């Protein structure tokens, strides 16, 4: 087993805005090994983005955050680290790609400058070195006509090209971990395929670990080694992609996977989905967050929080009373 590059243990994040307090991350544990890809899937509002960005100090203004638990990254503890310490890590050891490349880039600065500034800051390059390095990166991410593109502004580029520029910025300091938040969601399906392939190639080249935050199971299937399925601020199920997606254990994972339209589905047949809606994360959830929508729920599901346990003969962990119960019955027989 490879040693973990990132190890998150019992992470809790509280967010306080002017009007409300919410807990979008409620006791989450997972780890990412070097050169491995972990996908984090879940619906909007399940806490998947906050979980990854709040510990790095990346939150919207007007929100105060309270992070508890532990995040060990490459031997350092990130929770409670000073802003100065985080600055040395952000963009250098851990870098990020955001969902909407158009709004993540600075509209008033040239593409080349935005890439060069990263290596000036983190690698101590001179302007000239940084410009040359930026040109190499633009070539590396497969942008045609690189010299010309370097002198363009983001609004002159398509969404796919902007995302390639974002990737160039993210890898400029050759990070150990890349966190990609919905890297292909805003893009068309044909461009999505190009971007995901590019990320994979770069990962191989840099021997980099990757966390892909997504809601698209198809993206998980083709790109990740492990997957964490999140619901209501907690991980419902975690394990190798080929186990979790093929043989899901948690009722939420099962529902999510069966909701994907498949080519075998006859035309005009009803879509499968989950009834109800995801919960608001305002109050602490006593039992299992999924129990109001779960068809298999028993009394205990709404009163006590299920423990996150490994399922026998698998590498999968799930937080579900029903799964755990059948497990212990199986053990007794």
């Amino acid at each position, binding site marked *: 087993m490879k040693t973990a590059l990132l190890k998150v243990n019992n992470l809790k994040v509280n967010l306080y805005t002017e009007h409300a307090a919410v807990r979008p991350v409620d006791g989450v544990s997972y780890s990412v090994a070097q050169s491995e890809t972990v996908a984090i899937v879940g*619906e*909007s509002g399940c806490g998947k983005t906050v979980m990854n960005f709040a510990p790095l100090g990346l939150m919207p203004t007007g929100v105060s955050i309270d992070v508890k638990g532990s995040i060990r990254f490459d031997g350092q503890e990130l929770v409670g680290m000073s802003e100065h310490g985080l600055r040395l890590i952000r963009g250098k050891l851990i870098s990020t790609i955001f969902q909407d490349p158009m709004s993540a880039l600075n509209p008033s600065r040239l593409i080349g400058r935005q890439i060069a500034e990263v290596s000036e800051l983190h690698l101590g390059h001179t302007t000239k070195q940084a410009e040359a390095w930026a040109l190499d990166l633009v070539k590396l991410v497969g942008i*045609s006509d690189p010299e010309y593109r370097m002198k363009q502004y983001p609004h002159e580029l*398509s*969404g*796919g*090209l902007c995302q390639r520029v974002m990737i160039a910025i993210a890898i400029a300091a050759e990070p150990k971990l890349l966190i990609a938040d919905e890297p292909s969601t805003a893009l*068309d*399906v*044909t*461009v*999505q*395929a190009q971007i995901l392939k590019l990320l994979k190639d770069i990962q191989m080249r840099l021997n980099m670990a990757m966390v892909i935050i997504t*809601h*698209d*199971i*198809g*993206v*998980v*299937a*083709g790109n990740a080694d492990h997957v964490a399925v999140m619901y209501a601020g907690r991980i419902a199920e975690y394990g190798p*992609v*080929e186990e979790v*997606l*093929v043989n899901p254990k948690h009722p939420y994972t099962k*529902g*999510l*996977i069966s*909701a*994907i*339209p*498949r*080519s075998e*589905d*006859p*035309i*005009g*047949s*009803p*879509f*499968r*989905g*989950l*009834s109800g*809606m*995801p919960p608001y994360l305002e109050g602490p959830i006593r039992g299992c967050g999924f129990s109001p929508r779960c068809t298999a729920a028993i009394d205990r599901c709404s009163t006590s929080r299920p423990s996150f346990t490994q399922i026998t003969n698998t590498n999968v962990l799930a937080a579900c009373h029903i799964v755990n119960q059948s497990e212990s019955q199986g053990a007794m027989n």
Partner: protein
Amino acid sequence: MTNNAVLKVENLVTHFKSVERGKVVRAVDDVSIELMPGEIVGLIGESGCGKSTLGRSIVGLEKPNSGKILLDGVDLSSLKGKSLRTSRRSIQYVFQDPYSSLNDRQTIGESIGEALLIIGIRDKKQRSKRIHELLDRVGLPKHLSDRYGRELSGGQRQRVAVARSLAVNPRVLICDEPVSALDLSVRAQVMNLFFDLQKDLGVACLFIAHDLALVRQAATRTYVMYLGSIVEAGSSQDINQNPGHPYAQALLSAIPNPDPRIERNRKAIPIIGDIPSPTDPPSGCRFRTRCPIVVDQCAETTPESITVSDGHYVACRFAERNG
């Protein structure tokens, strides 16, 4: 069969002035489509291909340069004043983003009630009865009529938007990416609502989407659009099992499969680069700059639409008739 179409679009052209002086954005360039009563038809293509402009032109949100829009055989451009307004009512639009399509200062009841006022239901009691009926129709509880849009979830808001468009008893709904802003688990609920409307009310839907998997299951027929023109049209089954146009083939091969065992061996047909600018579309076949099987002649002439099987048309010189 053609004569019964509830909506027929013939050779529609919608161009915009470009910010670059003297240039024209050819958003929709000679497009013809038709919808049968109660039929769900898909319109797919990448962003920037003109699919939304086509939808907006049909409902009159954009002014087409030329071409005809026929509702029950009546050309809308021949109508004026009251008769035009009455006809237009029969075609309603459901927008992509339910967060911006509802007025946050109106209650749900007011929002739907406004549409009812327009068709002349002035009696308050009658109106509120109809609002409740419509909410019930889209699967929402009656008491939501006193709530504000901001208090509802995305799925609920999209249902309200559908209820509002149904208020005027339309025959055609133009749904522009109606579920792409919604989560997977809620998406199915809204999609099934469209099936119910089609079955119970006989409303025809033009379903504009970039999610091929969704259209594949929802629509009986599909149009594939690329850079302002239709490159392939046919039954969804034919297009999915036997796509004829290299663009449609590539688009379908790019859908990721949720099963990792299949996904890891999936062979996608590569398409290079991005969609070209519609201000300066390539000569001849518009897809030729990204096409994996392009030949020199593709730059010279625009390919004719070839019938590959009954009701399945492909605009590619390499398309062949099956059987």
